């Protein structure tokens, strides 16, 4: 099914960005709101083809019988033609990126709305630039999620980087330059390796089709044979010749698949972020303005998990097998280490940042064990975290706007001062804690179950599950302690006259809170739209 809807979706924010620059300063934020609102509405139009996918009978029709079999909203235009290569402008949608696209447009919309009080910020210069960059960032994120050509993917990946750099570096806190450069360099270091992989994968796929021409049947129509190398992510994963060749060839003396896997992995692990390359995250979060933190935690971190599932595993399954133990260890360490670091923080925002490290550890663990349950859990955890962590960051932002500091130990009794806000905070943080009935629980439990399920494949699976499960105790510890220090206790005189959360603030918190509950109570709302693709990927790699 061909469609230009995805292109519109991706570039409406860009148009909005240009409009922001052109429009008078007074209406900038309205324009930005409009642009992000339109893209959110457009993203909802992506859902219809996936409706009814929860039914086993429909699942095959919606998701296809194998990976890449039933992509929706495909747009494929030859873009850069060389003598021996074609770079395509290739967008498409399946169960893997659909939930993430909707999450992106939603969080972007809320982030724009969270920037509504831009004029009251400490650094309130360059309003046009700020909103334009925010929208440009949205284009980058959406593009990364829907691009199915590796080259295009890489370009969007880099497009994402620059706006973020400026958003932190210009409108950030006191150490913004340090944080911005750190963010930039860490991400860039990852993308350099990705670039190497990009080039190598292209040439190796070219060699593959030359080596096994009889196997190189393209997935596109099932008949034509590939003659040159390709950047097509689905082709790389499904073409038998390429898969065979990738599996057996060497790269600088090492097996090709594990090496490429790790090249790609590093880039995504930085984004995820996994310990020990997580260190940019707390700094970036602490310095970034609230809406940017929301996007950073809500969407940007998901690029890592998405990258694993779109690139690493389908294309290099043997790499996944090879590194499974290492990856799971990194995941478990991230869970525990992140939680412990969070426990020791006194900066509110830093605590939430470290909790992201801990939560995204579950994503890595769930993917590393390569079971269906694990994949489901990891994907769900990404969505759940994409909802609960922007909510937490916004909760921090609300109180920062009033107190102008984030020192946890100086707060206290805020629930008495701001009861509505306190209720929202309880929902947000309990969702983050993984309370059943809220979204955080489902992802965690699925990851744990998935890890346990892998006990025949990996001897470390059960210990990993035990350690990861122990993480929930630490999580409960630091979150409850946080709630106690900030929201409970006697009212402090210096905060006693704080106004209750405004209508706008509640309006941003409400949908997130509602989603926390809905996803926790009815996880099928998400599962139904992605399970089919995850199963196809697993069929592909196992």
């Amino acid at each position: 099914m061909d469609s230009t809807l995805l292109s519109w979706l991706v570039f409406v924010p860009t148009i909005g960005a240009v409009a922001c620059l052109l429009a008078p300063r007074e209406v900038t934020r309205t324009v930005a709101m409009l642009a992000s609102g339109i893209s959110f509405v457009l993203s909802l139009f992506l859902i219809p083809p996936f409706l009814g996918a929860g039914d086993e009978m429909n699942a095959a029709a919606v998701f296809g019988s194998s990976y890449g079999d039933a992509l929706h909203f495909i747009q494929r235009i030859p873009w850069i033609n060389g003598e021996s290569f074609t770079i395509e402008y290739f967008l498409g949608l399946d169960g893997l990126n659909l939930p993430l696209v909707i999450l992106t447009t939603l969080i972007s919309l809320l982030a724009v709305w969270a920037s509504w009080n831009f004029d009251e910020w400490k650094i309130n210069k360059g309003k046009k630039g700020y909103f334009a960059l925010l929208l440009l960032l949205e284009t980058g994120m959406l593009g990364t999620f829907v691009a199915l050509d590796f080259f295009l993917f890489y370009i969007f990946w880099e497009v994402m980087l620059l706006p973020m750099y400026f958003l932190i570096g210009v409108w950030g806190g006191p150490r913004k330059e340090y944080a911005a450069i750190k963010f930039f360099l860490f991400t860039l270091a990852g993308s350099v390796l990705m670039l190497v992989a990009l080039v190598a994968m292209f040439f190796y796929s070219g060699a593959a089709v030359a080596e096994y021409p009889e196997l190189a049947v393209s997935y596109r129509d099932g008949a034509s044979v590939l003659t040159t190398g390709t950047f097509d992510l689905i082709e790389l994963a499904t073409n038998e010749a390429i898969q065979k060749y990738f599996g057996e060839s060497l790269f600088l003396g090492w097996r090709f698949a594990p090496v490429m896997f790790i090249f790609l992995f590093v880039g995504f692990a930085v984004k995820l972020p996994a310990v020990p390359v997580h260190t940019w995250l707390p700094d970036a979060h602490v310095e970034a303005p609230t809406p940017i933190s929301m996007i950073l935690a809500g969407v940007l971190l998901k690029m890592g998990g998405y990258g694993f599932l779109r690139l690493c595993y389908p294309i290099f399954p043997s790499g996944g097998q090879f590194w499974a133990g290492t990856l799971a260890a990194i995941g478990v360490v991230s869970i525990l280490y992140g939680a412990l670091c969070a426990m020791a923080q006194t900066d509110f925002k830093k605590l939430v940042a470290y909790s992201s490290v801990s939560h995204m550890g579950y994503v890595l663990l769930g993917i590393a064990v390569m079971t269906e349950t694990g994949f489901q859990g990891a994907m769900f955890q990404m969505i759940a975290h994409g909802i609960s962590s922007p909510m937490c960051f916004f909760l921090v932002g609300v109180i920062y706007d009033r107190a102008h500091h984030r020192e946890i130990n100086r707060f206290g009794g805020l629930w008495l001062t701001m009861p509505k806000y306190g209720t929202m905070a309880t929902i947000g943080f309990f969702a983050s804690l993984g309370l059943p009935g809220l979204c955080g629980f489902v992802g965690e439990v699925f990851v744990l179950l998935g890890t346990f399920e892998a006990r025949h494949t990996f001897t470390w699976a059960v210990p990993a599950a035990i350690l990861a499960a122990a993480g929930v105790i630490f999580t409960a510890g630091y979150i409850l302690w946080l709630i106690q220090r900030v929201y409970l206790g006697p009212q402090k005189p210096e905060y006693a006259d704080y106004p209750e959360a405004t209508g706008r603030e509640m309006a941003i918190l409400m949908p997130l809170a509602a989603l926390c509950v809905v996803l926790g109570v009815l996880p099928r709302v998400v599962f139904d739209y992605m399970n089919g693709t995850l199963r196809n990927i697993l069929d592909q790699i196992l």
Partner: protein
Amino acid sequence: MESYSNYEIYLMTGTMIPFVSFVILMLFGHRLGKPLSGWVTVAAMASSCALATMTLVGWMGEIDGGTSAGLTAAAQLNQVTWAHLGSIPLNVGVKLDSLTVVMYFMVTFVATWIFVFSVGYMAGHSDEVDGQSKYHRFFCYLSLFGFSMLGLLCSSSLLFLFVFWELVGLCSYLLIGFYFDRKYASNAAIKAFVTNRVGDFGFLFGLMMVAFFLGTFDLEQAAARFAEQYQSHIGLFAGDMTIDLLGWEISGGMVATMMGIGLFCGAMGKSAQFPLHVWLPDAMAGPTPVSALIHAATMVAAGVYLVARVFRLLTPDAQMFIAIIGAITLTLMALIAIVQVDIKKCLAYSTLSQLGYMIFGMGCGAWIAALFHLMTHAFFKAMLFLCSGQVIEGCHHEQDMRKMGGLIRKMPVTAFTFLIGVLAIAGFGIPLAGIGLGGYFSKDEILAVAWDRAFLWGEPLEHHGDGHADSTTDDAPDSMTHTGPQAIRLVSRHAHVFGWNGGVIAGASAAPTGLVEFGRRDRGLTPPAIDYRPSGASQDRDTSRDRDASRGRDTQGAPAGFALASDPQPDEHGAAHDAGGGEHHPAAGAWQRSGGDRLWRVLFWCALATAYVTPFYMMRAWWMTFMGKPRDEHVYHHAHESPLMWFPLVVLAVFTFVSSYWLFRPLIADAAPTASGGILVAGYDGVADDAAAAAGQLIHVHEAHHWLAYGVGGSWLIAFIAAIAIYRGGLALPTRLKAAFGPIATLLERKYYFDEVYGLVFVKGCVAFAHVCRFVDTYIVDMFANLLARMTERLANFSGNGVDARVVDGVFNGIAVTSFDISDMFRSPQTGRIRNYVLFAAGGAALIVLFLIVMASLSAGPVAVASTGG
């Protein structure tokens, strides 16, 4: 999907009503205001209670009509899929059986009256802490609790049980921390939640095993598959159902035991069993109605309910573990209660001890008795807490019993209802006459089963008394000779041991044999045969025939042998076994009269001794509060009762009197055969005769009861006399006694230093470790990043300012200068600008060469890469 029966609709509606009230209060609570939001909650819970009563009455009719089992089975089919776990569907459904019906009734009934009490109690307690009222919030949480607790009882799936389990935990957290402006309240709330999380960690692990070894979360299906696996010739959790803990492989029954213990960990948290008991006393920081409802009657009993539900998934070792934990809890906590002076804390420790009784009962296999005790306890303990609430409220928030005394004159209703509670918990009754309060029957029944398990199960039957010691004795040393993990594996694989020691299993395995005699005589029922044998499957089949013969009974439905090992063991064990006792009863091969047996006796004696302690501390509390002379004029002066509060007391007191035996026990007994007919351990009293039970006769475990009638029948009287004797003359004698017992009293007063040790090891330790992590993260991990950055900067500096500016530039400048000099030299004889041309020409040539080289290498590059790959 079948259509829903009325009962399911009642239960579901009854569960949703409190949720609706929760939503109403959340949205409009502050507008409804002070008394109204309370009454909304009461109305909601009362409607649920009405539905529960309709269900209960109808259900009793169904039981009489013999249609109840059909309804249970039909309800089982009404499932909605919530999500898919891989290929395992996660279904939601209503569990409809006698246990749910009776528990549901108990919870709604107690909750309704506690809510009524709360309306009175909170009138004076919600506003004192801050400028604005939190009154509606209290009832909002109570509604949420009602919903979660009822959901827990209705869940047919373990996963949903877990979800509601956590939700009641959340409500508990919110309500304990209701006065969150007080530090100790929010501390207590956190403590409760985190301690429960520790238990849930185990629960979660148990759930994983249930999910992947039994392939379902559904309670019924899980039990059925458990039985099926056990009866299949390879045995329980055989085949690929192993857990590999980094080389230490666990399989078979050991895994099943771990699963059982894992699930029980959840119960340990919720029911506050040793060593996770520490949160419950602190939970008294919450408002008193909360203590009554959540921390005495319902939520803390959920742990017992859980064990009852998963009873069929327990192995003898898991049961053993449960019994040990229960016995430790009931003994240690009862002792602490003796020295408590805070009226609520005293009741809290009493609750802990009674929960220990229930858990101990479950561990003994006293399925009915434990649940029966849960029921009776729920009524009288809720009442006792409400009484204490009345006292505290009346005495102007004074909780210290040392300042009370003589309150009977000011609060007669409270004093008498409290006394009824004391009598009930003390096990007041007239031995051998069948007259007594609820607690008398239920506690006696637990003790009777425990006695039976300790003494009767241990009797080896003559016809297989000998010839088997050898097989056990040769097993034990054999596994001992191995060391380390291998030895453990050996034990778990070969021996009739799930993990503890040979004797334990031996005791358990011999048990049913004893039970057979018993069961036959009393009930004409045959519990399933249980046979834990060291040998492998093939051998089992060979010998099962002669076992049947020697036992002379039908083993239909019984396992063909219980093989613990995943692989047959054709080794010396089997050989020795055959040689030693080939023609004997194989079950006896596992039999030995040793530690396990003795352990059961120790446990029994603990429980028995505590039966003397309980009446003592309860009478002590009652006497200190209500009798004697007033010790604090201010408190005494202020004391009063209010009708909204004492009326619920009376209702509960009446129920404590009449309810239990005639109403609850038959229903629980009805649920028992399906719920406790586990294949590994038969619920000992799980096959009671309904008709006889309804008549109020304890016909089963006859012998034990006769024995116990003399043993503990008068315990309440003796202990009452002792307590009154000590506290009659005020606090002088107790103070002297305390001084005399010095260190022991201190140990008890400090609660065995659990809080201190946990605080130091876990809380401080964890926070310290967190700080270490933070240090590592801020200084070491970050330092590497910064170091790398700085090194790069240095390198750039070096190459930019050093190499480039000095060396490269220097070279070029040098060349320039030199060439200038040279050209200068050359210039002197010449006049033209030839040096420019020369330089341009040379530079241009160099650039062209460089460009060509680069181009050549670039065009060759990819090819080179690709060919390396090929």
